[in-house]
């Protein structure tokens, strides 16, 4: 599996994502510069965390217009796994690949800590290696992770099982319905505030995030196999 990690000016978790895939998962991975226009040849796309364009104005607002974004949207439409973490999630929202918007944390402060997440939906290509309702430990680090959507959107997310992760215990940022991560209807675009790439090495405190990447790999192997046999 060959994964692209998109690098925007101001991305700062790009290397973390790169090493989680290269060292944690042991798969091929490359950085793709925001000004590129193609993602041909990549099997999965990661939009890492950080402060693209300083997050000046609004998180993710400026990145959405980067040269690479049409290719990201195309990859999403083609059904490739697209994962946006933290700032990556905010970019996916701004780009309209996922519904809703992000507000400042309810306490208005940046917050960095390891939280407990509940796996609401383990029937996605990102979460197949977790158990339903499994509690996992993943770090968060954000100032604007207070997910917002209107009632109708929330109902839609619930009806379609699009809520993948929720915060277990205290909600750190005030997000609606304790949402920590959501997926698109098609099931191949996941946005989440917590950082699975920071939980891919036991030396740093938790490797609960590694199974998310392994799930993607399994999915890829299965679909490659299916393509081969069909």
């Amino acid at each position, binding site marked *: 599996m060959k994964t692209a990690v998109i690098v925007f000016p*101001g991305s*700062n978790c790009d290397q*973390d994502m790169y090493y989680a895939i290269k060292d944690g998962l042991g798969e091929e991975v490359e950085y793709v510069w925001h000004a590129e226009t193609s993602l041909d040849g990549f099997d999965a796309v990661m939009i890492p965390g950080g402060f693209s364009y*300083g997050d000046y104005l609004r998180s993710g607002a400026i990145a959405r217009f980067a040269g690479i974004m049409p290719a990201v949207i195309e990859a999403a439409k083609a059904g490739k796994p697209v994962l946006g973490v933290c700032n990556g999630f905010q970019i996916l929202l701004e780009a309209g690949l996922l519904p809703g918007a992000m507000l400042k944390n309810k306490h208005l402060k*940046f917050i*960095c800590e390891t939280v407990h997440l509940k796996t609401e939906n383990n029937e996605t290509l990102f979460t197949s290696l977790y158990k339903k309702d499994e509690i996992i430990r993943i*770090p968060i680090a954000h100032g604007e992770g207070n997910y917002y959507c209107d009632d109708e959107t929330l109902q839609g997310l619930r009806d379609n099982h699009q809520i993948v992760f929720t915060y277990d215990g205290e909600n750190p940022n005030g997000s609606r319905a304790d949402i920590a991560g959501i997926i698109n209807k098609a099931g191949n675009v996941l946005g989440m505030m917590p950082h699975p790439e920071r939980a891919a090495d036991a030396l740093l405190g938790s490797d609960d995030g590694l199974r998310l990447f392994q799930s993607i790999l399994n999915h890829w192997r299965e679909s490659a196999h299916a393509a081969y046999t069909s």
Partner: protein
Amino acid sequence: MPLTHLEPSPEQIEQEKIYRTMGLTEDEYVEVKRLLGRKPNYTETGLFSVMWSEHCSYKTSKPLLKQFPTSGKRVLQGPGEGAGIIDIGDGQAVVFKIESHNHPSAIEPYQGAATGVGGIIRDVFSMGARPVALLDSLRFGDLNNSRVRYVFEEVVSGIAGYGNCIGIPTVGGELQFDDCYNGNPLVNAMCVGIMNHEDIQVGQARGIGNTVMYVGASTGRDGINGATFASEEISDKSDEKRSAVQVGDPFMEKLLVEACLELTKHEALVGIQDMGAAGLVSSASEMAAKAGVGIHMNLDLIPQRETEMTPYEMMLSESQERMLIVIKKGSEEEIKAIFARWGLHAVAVGEVIEEEVLRLEHKGQIVAEVPSDALASAPVRHMPSKVPAEYTDNQAAPVWIPVIEDYAGTIKKLLVQPTLASKDWVTRQYDYMVQTNTVVAPGSDAAVVRVRGTKKGLAMTTDCNAKYLALDPLVGGKIAVAEAARNIVCSGAVPLGITDCLNFGTPENPEVFWEMEESVKGMAEACKVLETPVISGNVSLYNETDHEAIDPTPVVGMVGLVEDLDRVATVSFKNEGDAVYVVGQAAPEFGGSALQIMFEGKASGKPPVLNLELEKKRQSQVLAAIQSGLVSSAHDISEGGLAAAIADAVFGTSLGADLHFTTDPAVELFSETQSRYLISVPEASMKAFESAVDGAVLVGRVTRNDKITLEFASDTVTLDRPELEKDWRGVLSCIMSAKN
């Protein structure tokens, strides 16, 4: 009409003594005239006044700094460049430096702190290193004061805002509160970087004919000090224009880091230096002076954010996120391309010349020409010093011994003193995990950051107990270094070296200058014995509130090397049943202790004694025990004594402690006797540990419950961990949310 025409003439500057309002003394002005062989014009007077300020020239502190040991077998670069460099093996090196931003933070706390972080990061990457960690050493006044709370809150936000955005983890630091910092907070930021030996850069302008380029943000009238602005004539332009506060742009700096690190690999790069305090003047003149050459610069080419800037303003501006580089002639286009990729401009603004002068051209005229080394060689000032009466009194004071009836209550009260309380409220606002190398996060004695791709780690800490220095700066100075080293050792690392930030009051006050002398002497002695050379540092003077100097606060930033990340220790107890040892015996030493401050409201008497030889021996024994995998946890006993250390060891765990002592409870629990440790050891390693570490006394066991039991001959103290921890964790957030 251009503003330059309104500037006073050289004659006016002399006759009306305008140089004095700009910050030069009579003697210094005479020296400037001698160096130039004529009277300086307005711009030139400005160049000298900033370059000869204490901040840039260290003219008062230089004679003292000579005492510091600065070399060692691992030192690759000592003080003098942007940051110092120490070898960590395998062709790699660690780069670090600390810097103060106290005064800007007092005026505009968010931006002052943010730009302090930005500045120290530039010092590190300008050496060719990738910044991997930040630390912040902070001191504020009384939290009952709403301005103090505002400044505290904004400083922390500013550090978080800059560090989080640029993606460098803030992994450690300090936070203390004392009335002496009421109007003058201390905001010291330290940055640590990692590099390969072959990438070491210097801030030198070598090679006649080479091109001088300006990169990064454009220049505005930021931070041009209103006080050094001379005459009434030019003040008709609004005040707003003058002392504009510097605003940090971490996004710009992130781009600058990446572009400059790419540049570092390019063979056309000759020299690189950041534009810190005194911006263009200091970078240009220092780069020229160090290489024994001159620089001719055309100021019309300087990227400008505002219109009609004068040469004076451009040279003295402290706009952030700018670098000056010297490259081989002819490679300008390649260099521009590197910066363009990051959306930045690199502009050729001058060239290296043989004549050893800094020559500035503006609108077709030479507006300043001064010998390059003149700016960098301010006349040294030898200040008088005098032993303060308070010191003599404290030395003679009878030993203070606390009277304690309720030990449990005293411990509870002690742990919620803001200085001892949990720092979570602060550290949660910092992204301490970005770059995914943080092996030990804030909360232990030292933070540990992995060197990716190796088994090695870097341990880092900042330390200074100013209360000890207020009582006895010589002893306090030694303790600051020793405590930093103890923190490094407790994490399983060998101390490599230090950077220091000397925060003091007004050196013209002989008592303050005496404190400086004594502190530096003490620090230097400790550095020699503990073999931790000083590789970089910073001096911040004139820290006062209402003409009262702050306590002498020479902050020590130390870095150590962990050889094997599998053998890292932290303060927390790990396993039920582990044996608990206290290393070192407490004496009744309460001068400057947290307990004395809590009971008496102020420090008095003598600080704890420090025996450097004993300190050194213990450190090496404790380190060896950790490195051989004998210990489960290690914590030094410092502020708040053993009581605070035990609390630190059980907080954040589901463990308790059952400990028994034959000593006096007040002394055992609260004395701040030096060179002591609290260490837990697995049953199987007890024998080996006891023979490895002299003076280790077995005091009890780690338990799996919520109780801390401390049994003495006269008293048994029982504490409930969850209750104690809740109060300790909640203090700062409680104070800060009850705002205004």
